[in-house]
């Protein structure tokens, strides 16, 4: 089964990358863009058929490795739960 982890910076944490992209988009004529934040999306292929257990395991992975919980929040999407 597949799981997707979306990782975004916590509110208030500076996102210099987003700021630079926002500037560039404005310069390229996309003046309607007022803010950009950049996150990560991690797609996991996992041998596990039970969506609940899958979600639980992925949450563990986020806490141990995938997310830097000091500055990032994560959310998990389990494909077959959708």
């Amino acid at each position: 089964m597949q799981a997707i982890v979306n990782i975004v910076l916590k509110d208030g944490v500076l996102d210099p990358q987003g700021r630079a992209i926002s500037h560039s988009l404005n310069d390229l004529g996309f003046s309607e863009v007022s803010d950009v934040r950049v996150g990560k999306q991690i797609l996991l292929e996992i041998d596990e058929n039970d969506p609940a257990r899958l979600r639980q395991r992925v949450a563990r992975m986020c806490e141990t490795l995938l997310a830097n919980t000091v500055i990032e929040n994560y959310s998990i999407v389990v494909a077959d739960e959708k």
Partner: protein
Amino acid sequence: MTLSALRVAIIVFPGSNCDRDIMVAIEQLTSRRPALVWHKEASLEAADLVIIPGGFSFGDYLRCGALAGRSPIMNAVLDHAARGGAVMGICNGFQVLTETGMVPGVLIRNAELKFACRNVRLQVCKTLASPFTSKLAINKNLTLPIAHNEGNYFAEPGELDQLEGEGQIAFRYTDSSIIGKANPNGAARDIAGVISRNGRVIGMMPHPERAMSDLHGGSDGAYFLLKSLEALVS
């Protein structure tokens, strides 16, 4: 034409940090100071060689070279190249060239996911006619420094075959007594530098401007640059 008549323009983006280094290197070889051109300029004065220097243009944000590749000055650089003008992209400059499609392929994260700063040994490949290789002996070895986080050259296997077939690979990482693996970043087929189909544009990861004399620990960079400049004036 003499070397001192050669007009070299160096493009400067916010975050470029090897612009001065390559300027000093070229001046050392030609006795003529290259022009520094700010990225917000929309036009480029006539130049015999345009150099896109190393550094972290726009902080390397989004993708290395992506934001720089869309700067106003790049339209002028593309026009220059379309007219057959010579362009050299070093390190971040190489990344800018791939982002704008001026040379094939892309540069992704180093396989070991670490920034790598050290000397590498390169082998000069047999290429199609190009000022950047025509005066170098095929199979000659050059020792040059690298310093990058995204130098892992990637293209589809079919495209790689084609690049090899057409003679568009300028340099490969090769075995060395230097400590560490020959290929420092996982680049496909050990590719360290490629040239465009017309031979006039080169993108390379190593930094020749950091190997200009024995005080730098070697002068192969001066040798490579001098041979390229000589080819451009002849």
